[in-house]
């Protein structure tokens, strides 16, 4: 029983973390048809930014609860700057290229950003554990969970709701859906598709950075975290169906629960399970769980 609860809780916590990363990735893909490898770097930038902002803030002796706003602020600032720079400065020139070429473009951006991060923050690990330990721990059925992790579940649920609300219940969101459905027709109807792209990319980048900033207190922030995260996020969005926010949620839950089951029952299979699940889903649903079928070219 204890094992089941531990597995469920760990799985859901991991899933909520995965969802925040995958949401940005899937949003960008859905609107722009770019599978953004540089998303891992956005994550890393958020983590580094969050860790160093929290460090500065606490070193100044301000009240500790403000550290949470520092994390959010780091994600907002970092994501906006990087997102704007990349979309306006680079991707703008590449629109209309093949999807696979766009993967390579973002791969190049990933390579560049990895070194930019090393240049700014160096290669040493950063720690910002204060926001993590500040909230204390809760006992649940004899097991101890960090409150910060539990808070993460609610934050993730909130992000999911905001995304759903924004896409389905606001005017801008509906316009965005028109762009997703048919870019050319949307442009004919007077929607500023270019601006939609920029805004989407920045939102996606902020979500990626937010995932990093929220994770920063729980880990040691060091080079290479972005590269590891991006393939996990890929697995999640591919399982859920590329471009679907609901799919990302489901994919995150599947991957999160599968991984935590593996970690508790047979730790050696941790990586294997994630891609095994992805293979299994794709074998039966080649487009992922939630994707809309596309017409074939004749």
């Amino acid at each position, binding site marked *: 029983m204890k094992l089941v609860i531990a597995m469920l809780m760990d799985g859901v916590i991991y899933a909520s973390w995965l969802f925040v990363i995958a949401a940005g990735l899937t949003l960008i893909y859905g609107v722009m048809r770019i*599978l953004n490898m540089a998303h891992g770097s956005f994550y890393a930038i958020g983590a580094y930014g969050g860790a160093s902002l929290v460090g500065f803030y606490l070193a100044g002796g301000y009240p500790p609860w403000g550290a949470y706003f520092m994390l959010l602020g780091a994600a907002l600032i970092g994501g906006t700057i990087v997102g704007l720079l990349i979309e306006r400065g*680079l991707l703008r*020139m*590449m629109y209309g*290229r093949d*999807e*696979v*070429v766009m*993967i*390579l*473009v973002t*791969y*190049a*951006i*990933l*390579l*560049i950003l*990895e*070194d*930019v991060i*090393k*240049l700014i923050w160096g290669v040493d690990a950063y720690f910002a554990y204060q926001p993590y330990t500040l909230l204390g721990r809760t006992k649940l059925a004899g097991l101890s969970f960090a409150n910060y992790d539990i808070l993460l579940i609610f934050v993730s649920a909130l992000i999911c709701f905001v995304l759903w609300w924004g896409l389905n219940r606001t005017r801008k969101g509906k316009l965005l859906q028109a762009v997703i459905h048919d870019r050319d027709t949307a442009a004919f109807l007077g929607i500023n598709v270019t601006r939609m792209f920029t805004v989407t990319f920045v939102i996606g980048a902020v979500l990626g950075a937010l995932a990093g900033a929220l994770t920063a207190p729980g880990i040691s922030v060091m080079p290479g975290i972005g*590269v590891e995260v991006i*393939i996990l996020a*890929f*697995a999640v969005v*591919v399982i859920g169906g*590329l471009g679907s926010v609901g799919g990302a949620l489901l994919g995150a839950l599947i991957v999160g629960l599968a991984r935590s089951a593996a970690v508790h029952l047979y730790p*050696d*299979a*941790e*990586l*294997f399970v*994630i*891609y*095994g699940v*992805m*293979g299994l889903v*794709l*074998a039966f649903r*080649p*487009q992922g769980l939630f994707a809309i079928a596309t017409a*074939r*070219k*004749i």
Partner: protein
Amino acid sequence: MKYATTMIIGAGIALLAAGLFMPGWLTFLLTLAFAKGLVVMGLLLLMRAGLVSFGQGLYYCLGAYCVGIAGDYFETQNALLLILLAVVVCVALAAIIGLLLCRYRDIFFAMFSMAFSMILYGVLVKSSAFGSSDGFNVKPPLLFGWTPTGESGPFLAYGLAVVALVGVGIFVWRYLRSPMGYAGEAVRENEIRVEYLGASVRRIIYTKYLLAAAMAGLGGGITALAAGHIDPEMAYWTTSGEFVFIALMGGVGHAAGPVIGAVLFELLRTYAFQISPYTWQMILGIALLVIILYLPKGVWSLVERVTKGKPL
């Protein structure tokens, strides 16, 4: 013999002769570059059919581990036997995985092939018998009783790489001019029409996938013998990304593209690493962006522009 075949064999002999006078570091660098060129040659077949595999690292790594493990297990260092085994094992695995993969296109093909290579990575990292994430050392190869020592040590692997490159190069050059080769581009342009013409898209893709796996296994096996050390990193997605990078850099329009791309890539990486150890990745990334922006058909398109007067 045809003109092109003679040219390729001539280039091979020239490379072998040059190898005798090369400094050790260059021999080593070229061996690794040629091994990667072999992998990318296979990727070229897939990419011409519109399929970009982000998982050729699977066969690259598998080939290398086959050579390493079989060398230990059978206590043989016969280079030819080991490499042959690597190719056979890779083709066998590709025959199974390919059945599943040839149903997928575009990004799904890319992601699914990446998933398989990450599974191998995950398994290898956790298998302590093979040194987990550190990998293990491969004994130096020998060929029909000839044990190269000292100076001639790296030359054996180099020679193997050149011979393999010549063989695969001739094959790919001819294959691209065969009906099966042309079918690849037809599949990329329009699958349904290919089916209407009576060809099986599935079979075309499956064959190409097997060929690509064989070449990747060959490249991996040679890398293991040349480098003397293998680790799971060879199956990590960044390695597969490198192969796609090389393919794009060299261009997939011609069989020579991958080789030129691989040599350029290794040179670029080596020099970038030497000049600025902290920003070599950035240099590679910028090079990739420049090529995508200004040379979308790869470096080989420059050669074609000069020789055939083709516009870019």
